[in-house]
């Protein structure tokens, strides 16, 4: 029994020690990325956008909440494992894979013509009135212009292409429209953000607004910004999109989740992106 007592005492001490370090501010750091075209500096922290002024003074990219070694991987394009997937996306871009031999490059020339798209999506398509994420634009080309079956919204082909297209907007400031035709989608997204889901009855805000900077078990809670997506997640050794992250978060509340690429999570992506208006698109980030 003596041993047991000691163990309990040790646990109590450990518990106290953990409680003492339960808050860790976002790391003070600057993200300068060495690219093939020289060094670029990304905006990873900014004053909160107007609609969020009551909640936050400052918004932080999730990059600030990861540890030194993970942050370092994003400083050099060679060390950033996402670039493997960008390379695959580029091969796919140039490949004549349509029914009539169409390729992305055939219409759009180089992928750099996609610069800026990632920074303003999700957005409402002027013609159809539908809320479009980048995946929707890709699939509209795949089905309408190439005559193919749509790519799975979280499949590898889609994520490779999304990584390539997102990278073209790296360094541009995220600026999604929340007014006009986007307003009803934005309101829907906001509603979802503040709704408690699942057996644990947790909303996005419970972690990412009320408790960011603290630890949930061993995970350092960020503000849940999506400017770094799609990103390489070390745990999965692969790319993760914002849509997949939403599924993961809601699943962790022990809820039946909405579908990735479905109307609910697209509206949520618009709302969450608007909370990060002012941060740079990181193109392809690295998180653990």
């Amino acid at each position, binding site marked *: 029994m003596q041993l047991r007592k000691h163990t309990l005492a040790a646990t109590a001490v450990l518990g106290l020690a953990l409680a003492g370090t339960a808050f860790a501010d976002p790391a003070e750091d600057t993200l300068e990325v060495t690219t093939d075209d020289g060094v670029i500096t990304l905006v990873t922290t900014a004053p909160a956008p107007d609609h969020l002024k009551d909640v936050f003074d400052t918004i932080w990219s999730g990059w600030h909440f990861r540890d030194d070694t993970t942050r370092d991987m994003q400083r050099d394009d*060679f060390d950033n*494992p996402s*670039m*493997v997937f960008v*390379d*695959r996306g580029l091969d796919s871009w140039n490949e004549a894979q349509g029914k009539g031999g169409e390729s992305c490059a055939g219409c759009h020339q180089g992928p750099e013509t996609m610069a800026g798209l990632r920074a303003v999506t999700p957005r409402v398509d002027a013609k159809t009135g539908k809320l479009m994420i980048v995946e929707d634009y890709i699939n509209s080309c795949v089905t309408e212009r190439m005559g193919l079956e749509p790519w799975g919204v979280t499949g590898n082909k889609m994520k490779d292409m999304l990584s390539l297209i997102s990278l073209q907007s790296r360094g541009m400031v995220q600026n999604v429209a929340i007014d006009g035709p986007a307003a009803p989608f934005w309101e829907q997204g906001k509603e979802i953000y503040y709704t408690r889901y699942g057996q644990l009855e947790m909303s996005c805000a419970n972690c990412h607004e009320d408790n960011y900077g603290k630890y949930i078990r061993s995970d350092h809670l960020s503000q849940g910004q999506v400017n770094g997506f799609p990103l390489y997640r070390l745990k999965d*050794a692969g790319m993760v999109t914002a849509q997949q992250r939403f599924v993961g978060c809601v699943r962790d509340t022990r809820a039946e989740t909405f579908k990735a690429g479905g109307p609910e999570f697209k509206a949520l992506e618009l709302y969450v992106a608007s909370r990060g208006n002012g941060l740079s698109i990181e193109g392809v980030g690295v998180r653990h």
Partner: protein
Amino acid sequence: MAKDAKPRVKVPASAKAGEVITIKALISHQMESGQRKGADGNLIPRSIINRFTCDLNGQNVIDVTIEPAVSTNPYFEFDARVDAAGDIKFTWYDDDGSVYEDVKSIKIA
């Protein structure tokens, strides 16, 4: 040829004679260890890159035997002294017999 195997290497464009440079070499590869079971309960056969070499102007710089414990997309970073301008050749050997190559040239500044 394993699908998606794609080499990436990073070498400075130029160096001083006798300078020690850092070379980075990565190849995308699933590096299936042969220890895992698939959904059907059977072992997924081993499929890895088992050897990596780098040669500078025909002289070997590094020759690595890679074992199944090495994770996906193997990445090597190492230093080499450059005495003369020339080509740096990288070679990866796949279990299935495929050989992937990449060459970068370096100048003496």
